[in-house]
């Protein structure tokens, strides 16, 4: 059946044929085109202006052990509670006379030394939930009611920032499944695990063009699927071109996170019009054998962040990327017998990139004042979101977060 593989070859004008056939579908075809035309116009406009401000949202999924990330090396209570998985004071990269970086966070440390890393300690929320999924929903929606409250916080942000251009891929997630933070009932979101296969083969794109345009049936799941197809169609070439033509200035690590960060760098600096890029680093649920696993995660995280920052720093668009790192919770203070830690509460958040002014914010939770073995959070995580919204993207935070939150001051350069 090899002739089937080659079928499109002897029909080079296939696209033309479909366009010709599109008169049958008249208005519906035009509808599809108008979305494309808008995205093209957007691209042209952006090329004229200064590069837009962008956000890279990096989620450490599974519950990052904050105490092993920013280690309170001078706290005896830490060493007492972490007899199995604790880090010895001498291995820690010291920040000050209380805390220091995990030994694998060499790039984070140099960012810190350059004044380009803001650490917000003790981030969490009232009535902490210990379920990965419920807590992720709270972080993704910035609401205690989670998904019941509607779109994700980035989805809401898009509605505020880009009320007109709903079809432009302002939100992109690199990975297999979309985090709820990018959930939007109105705006396009692009999701891909890797660029080269991000396309239809064997004439599928023409097929999809027809599949994407039918008489609207509001409320029907078909309507949602069709809009995803239109977004896919509008982004396929642009995404692959941007990734293929991108010439990174450093070599990224070969692991998934490293490669995802390279894709993120390529797309953020392209003319796609990405405002928020999302990447997930999986594997933080270290109930057992934490030492080896968390060390490896820290190494991957640091390698990927280091490569990304070295790659984008100094380019006009690269200098307009702020990175926000978060996790759905920290972990229980006392370790368990399987060399691991169970679900906990508060943990640090990080802001990095050229726009950031380094420093220590929030307050380290006291290890002497625990609730059932858990840290008490000192800073509502939405205050960090508020800083990003007010201070970086220029959107009044209450319009996205539902209620006004006091931004963390002094995190922007």
């Amino acid at each position, binding site marked *: 059946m090899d002739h089937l593989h080659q079928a499109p070859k002897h029909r080079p004008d296939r696209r033309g*044929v479909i366009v010709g056939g599109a008169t049958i579908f008249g208005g519906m075809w035009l509808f599809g085109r108008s979305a494309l035309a808008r995205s093209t116009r957007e691209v042209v406009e952006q090329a004229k202006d200064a590069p837009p401000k962008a956000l890279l949202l990096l989620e450490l999924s599974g519950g990052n052990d904050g105490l092993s990330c920013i280690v309170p090396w001078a706290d005896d209570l830490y060493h007492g509670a972490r007899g199995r998985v604790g880090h010895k004071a001498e291995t820690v990269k010291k920040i000050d006379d209380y805390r220091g970086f995990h030994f694998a966070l060499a790039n984070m440390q140099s960012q810190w030394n350059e004044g380009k890393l803001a650490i917000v300690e003790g981030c969490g929320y009232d009535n902490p939930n210990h379920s990965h999924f419920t807590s992720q929903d709270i972080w993704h929606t910035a609401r205690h009611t989670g998904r019941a409250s509607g779109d994700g916080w980035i989805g809401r942000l898009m509605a505020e920032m880009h009320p007109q251009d709903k079809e432009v891929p302002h939100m992109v997630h690199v990975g297999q499944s979309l985090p709820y933070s990018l959930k939007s009932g109105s705006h396009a979101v692009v999701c891909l695990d890797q660029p*080269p296969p991000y396309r239809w083969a064997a004439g599928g794109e023409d097929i999809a063009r027809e599949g994407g345009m039918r008489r609207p049936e509001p409320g029907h799941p*078909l309507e949602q699927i069709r809009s995803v197809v239109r977004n896919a169609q509008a982004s396929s070439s642009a995404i692959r071109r941007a990734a293929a033509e991108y010439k990174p200035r450093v070599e990224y690590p070969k692991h998934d996170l490293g*490669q995802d960060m390279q894709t993120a760098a390529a797309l953020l600096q392209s003319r796609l019009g990405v405002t928020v890029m999302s990447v997930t680093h999986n594997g933080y649920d270290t*109930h057992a054998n934490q030492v080896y696993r968390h060390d490896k995660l820290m190494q991957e995280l640091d390698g990927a962040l280091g490569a990304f920052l070295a790659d984008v720093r100094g380019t006009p668009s690269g200098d307009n990327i702020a990175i926000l790192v978060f996790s759905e919770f920290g972990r229980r203070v006392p370790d368990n017998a399987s*060399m691991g830690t169970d679900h906990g509460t508060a943990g640090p958040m990080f802001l990095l990139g050229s726009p950031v002014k380094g420093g220590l914010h929030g307050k380290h939770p006291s290890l002497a004042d625990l609730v059932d073995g858990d840290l008490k959070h000192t800073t509502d995580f939405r205050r960090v979101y508020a800083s990003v919204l007010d201070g970086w993207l220029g959107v009044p935070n209450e319009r996205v977060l539902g209620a006004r939150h006091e931004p963390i001051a002094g995190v922007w350069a």
Partner: protein
Amino acid sequence: MTESSRSVETLGRSRGLPCVLPGDQANMSIRSLYFSWRASACLAFASVPVLASSACEVGAVAASTTTSAQAPLVEWNRRNAEHLLNRAAFGATDAEVDVAVARGLAASIEALFPADAKVPRPEILGLRDLPLDLERPETRLRNVEGRREGLSRLQPDLISPLNMWGDWWIERMRQSEDPLRERMTIFWHGHFVSSVKEVGNAHEMIEQLAFLRDNALGDFETLLRGVGRTPAMLAYLNNDENVKEHPNENWARELFELFSLGDGNYTEDDIKQAARAFTGWTDKEGRFLFDRIVHDFGAKQVLGRAGALDGDMVVDLALEQEACARFMAAKLLHHFEGAPASIERVEEYAAFLRANDLHIGAFLRRLFADPAFYRDEVVGRRVAPPIEWLVGNARRLDLSAPGQMVLNMGDVLGQRLFWPPSVKGWEPDMAWITTATMMYRSNMAGIMLGLVSVQGLIRDAEFDERSMGDEPMMAAAKKSRSNGLNQLAYIQDTGWKPELSLAARAKAALAVGDARLAAWLCGELLAIEVPLDSGVRGSVAAFLARERREAGIEMETQLLAHPEGEAIVRRAAHFVLSLPESQLN
């Protein structure tokens, strides 16, 4: 055989303790503990005769819902017959819908619970006894990372049994002799999650899946009690390392949150105390073992009950909660109806579950005979999860797709069996649909039809050649992300081609002419009925007409007999399977 005696038999069989359960001495001690607890709770201990009589009631209730004169009737027609087969089996061809319509509703439901199905012990299970078992270095590596390292070192040996099981299981789905059982096995695999990534042992995964499959349509108690003893679960949620001095909460938390009650129906303290109750549940040489030495025999308080509770007592407490039936009713309704059910509907079905010993088979019999299951908001509006979609396509195309092909396509589309993405399993509904998966679904259909080269997909000739010059760097670098595609490329490289004869089938069905052929393709390949005025059939017909003219076939009636006819019908089939309409069932 009467309705009720038939269910007794089914139930009696599924009651059988799972292969990995008791038998050894260590187990006897926990069972006797458990028995005395049950006795003290004034619950007649579950002996076989007692169960059999309750099973009679289950059967009778189920039978009455399907035959009672008072119950509102389901209008039995092609739409509803196809709906039942979409949701309870793996879809149906036109001919299979005809059979179901002729059979009637009651018999169609009954056919989903084959009375003499042997719950076959697959040959695959024999793999456990291969010499591999004797020298399994990875079992000596007690921790997860050690297992994972062992896994990568021993991958060929460890993965191949799982691949054989996978081939066998996919073939069971495609043959659909006991389709509801296979579907529910997928459901339970996504509910009582373990992943070979963490378990690192194919035999333990197979044993757990066999246990879930044996009990897929039985009572929830057997599942909940048994799954915690499977070595795969003990490893996945670290209970094999849960000891008195510093309990590990992983299993206790997910037991409540994801397996039985749902978030909000227990406290953090319940989890901490329950974790103590499960200390000592571990495994040795692939068997469940209760290790008294590390068990915490002290007093605990869990879900409002105090005492020297052990693991089985905690399972009992979870089962007794009002929330348990509600949680499972909601999850099952959502799964089968494709959207969250109303509070009233959940309560109605939760009450039914409570009245029927949480019997899953009885629940499903009732659901399938419920007119509300056939309402417009339910029919044809559920996003088909990848494995269902792929197996359904293979069935509708009459394609004997290799199990490995379906499994790897599932991976590409976001449902990699044996490797669930998290302890919560797979996200349902629109989470399956992203910009990437809409392209990939079309491409997977194209591979099934012999139209798409996987190598061509991996190498992006359009852009990679222009910029890189040498090798396609992204594809080569992201090995883990390309796993499914690479495996599919390998299958194609071995010379696999689909054996299909769509043109001949169309001809036999008298689907001659662009419009009739388009209608036949839509009817045969789509799980949902497309309205006549939707334009779908028209666009398929227009596609056929264009293809036909390009191939120089002027007469519509000549297409199927033309040498290019099969290729053109396949491209039209690809068109149909790429449509948004194809993603629903």
